[in-house]
């Protein structure tokens, strides 16, 4: 007897890179191109894992360890992540703090690896990444805090499981605000367009991309996979709020949430195709706006 929660983790591990493929296909659709195959991210990762790596002589231990910790944190984070009504394999009171901590740990190690190269350029990217996440994390914490406060649950699984009965039904505006804040944080944390352009390789504009420039081969493959896991965690969490299908059967709930996750990715692609990147000075304003929306949701729920 395989429980739905274990399958949820496996689905996350297997399907995570697919989200990037969906985003790229939606962007191609908007631009009128046929686009790369849906499974291209898998091929990229497989190709990179087979390649050899080049290490600069200035790098130390941390350079190689960073991407591995990034993936490890993502995998552990997946075990805490509920898929809609189906509980996560690991759920205890306060586990949402651990999930946020794991995401922070992954970022911290990637940043350290970037600084380890000794390149001023990567240092600049690292500094931007940290500056943005310092604003995105309070927003995320407030959004999840609103969910937890509304549902009176201690664990993320219980909070997301009760999102329809305890958040949408009594106070729809609060649910919409939480979803909006989570969506903004998703775009920021995963270096998507209003904050960072994943396609750009222009020195002064890229943020996340610049931190991983020196990684090559398997290390870069791990960076890509870790990024995909992170995108999956955020999208599944957002889908858990946006798709409040709670029909009692964990399997159906999980399937609905996975479909919701794909829709979130498609929505991200649509945002990316229709919006321009924000000027750097506007980014903190948008993130503060997200934090304010989440705080408003905290005040709204009783």
């Amino acid at each position, binding site marked *: 007897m395989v429980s739905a929660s274990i399958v949820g983790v496996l689905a996350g591990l297997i399907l995570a890179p697919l989200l990037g493929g969906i985003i790229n296909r939606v962007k191609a659709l908007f631009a009128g191109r046929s686009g790369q195959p849906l499974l291209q991210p898998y091929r990229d990762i497989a190709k990179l894992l087979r390649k050899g790596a080049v290490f600069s002589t200035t790098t130390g231990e941390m350079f190689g360890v960073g991407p591995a910790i990034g993936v490890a944190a993502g995998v552990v984070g997946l075990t805490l992540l509920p898929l809609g009504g189906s509980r996560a394999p690991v759920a205890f009171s306060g586990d949402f703090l651990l999930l946020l901590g794991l995401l922070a740990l992954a970022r911290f190690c990637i940043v350290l690896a970037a600084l380890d190269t000794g390149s001023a350029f990567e240092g600049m990217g690292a500094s931007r990444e940290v500056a943005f996440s310092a604003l995105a994390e309070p927003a995320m914490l407030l959004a999840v805090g609103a969910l937890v406060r509304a549902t009176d649950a201690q664990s993320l699984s219980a909070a997301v499981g009760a999102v329809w009965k305890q958040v949408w039904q009594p106070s*729809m*505006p609060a649910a919409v605000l939480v979803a909006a804040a989570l969506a903004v944080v998703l775009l920021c944390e995963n270096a998507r367009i209003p904050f960072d352009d994943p396609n750009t390789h222009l020195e002064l504009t890229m943020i996340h991309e610049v931190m991983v420039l020196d990684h090559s081969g398997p290390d870069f493959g791990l960076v890509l996979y870790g990024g995909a896991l992170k995108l999956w965690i955020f999208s599944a969490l957002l889908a858990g709020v946006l798709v409040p299908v709670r029909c009692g059967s964990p399997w159906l709930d999980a399937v609905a949430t996975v479909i919701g996750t794909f829709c979130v990715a498609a929505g991200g692609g649509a945002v990316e195709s229709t919006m321009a990147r924000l000027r750097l000075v506007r980014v903190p304003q948008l993130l503060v706006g997200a934090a*304010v929306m989440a705080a408003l949701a905290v005040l709204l729920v009783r």
Partner: protein
Amino acid sequence: MGWEIDPILVTLVLVNLLLLGGSRLVTCIRLVAVQGVLLGILALLVQVGWSPTRAVLLAGGSVLLKGVVFPRLLSRALRGAEIRREMEPYVGYTPSVLLGLAMLALTVWVSSRLTLPLPAASHLLVPVALFTTLTGLFLIVARRKAITQVLGYLVLENGIVTFGIALSHEAPLSVELGVLLDVFVAILVMGIIVHNIREDFDHIDTDRLASLKD
């Protein structure tokens, strides 16, 4: 009842926060217009139960004035002036938004301790009314341009109207119509004043008027 009007109240709060964080004057004027229209809908939803004619009359008048006439007047005052943005406010935009959040928390706390003579239609109505009033006051105090201060005055008035909606069947129709008329005259006069300040001094920064000596 609460289920229908809560989204409107939350939108009102969001409009207030956008006003605190927005620098483009045209956008601010539009936001205040949106707020006026929302207030009209709110009044209609809350009051239509006990006197439909009166509610429709008041809501219609308020939407017409605040949603159409005031924005026109203000845009006209703005048109000749070579300003599009409120530059260098006394309090920056991001701090303003954060202060707005603090004000919102304060009003939620205050209204939870406030005993009303009769129950409000929604537990959010009173905090939102107080918050809108505070936002208006804040805009008057923390912004430099005369036009933004006029907008602050309008937002302040919107907050008081919201408070009136919470306790509306206490106020007679003539009082509410009188208030609308007063606001109309006030905006008209302020529009003319802004226009004249600009004609004479080529700017509408009120802080520079402090050094005027006769």
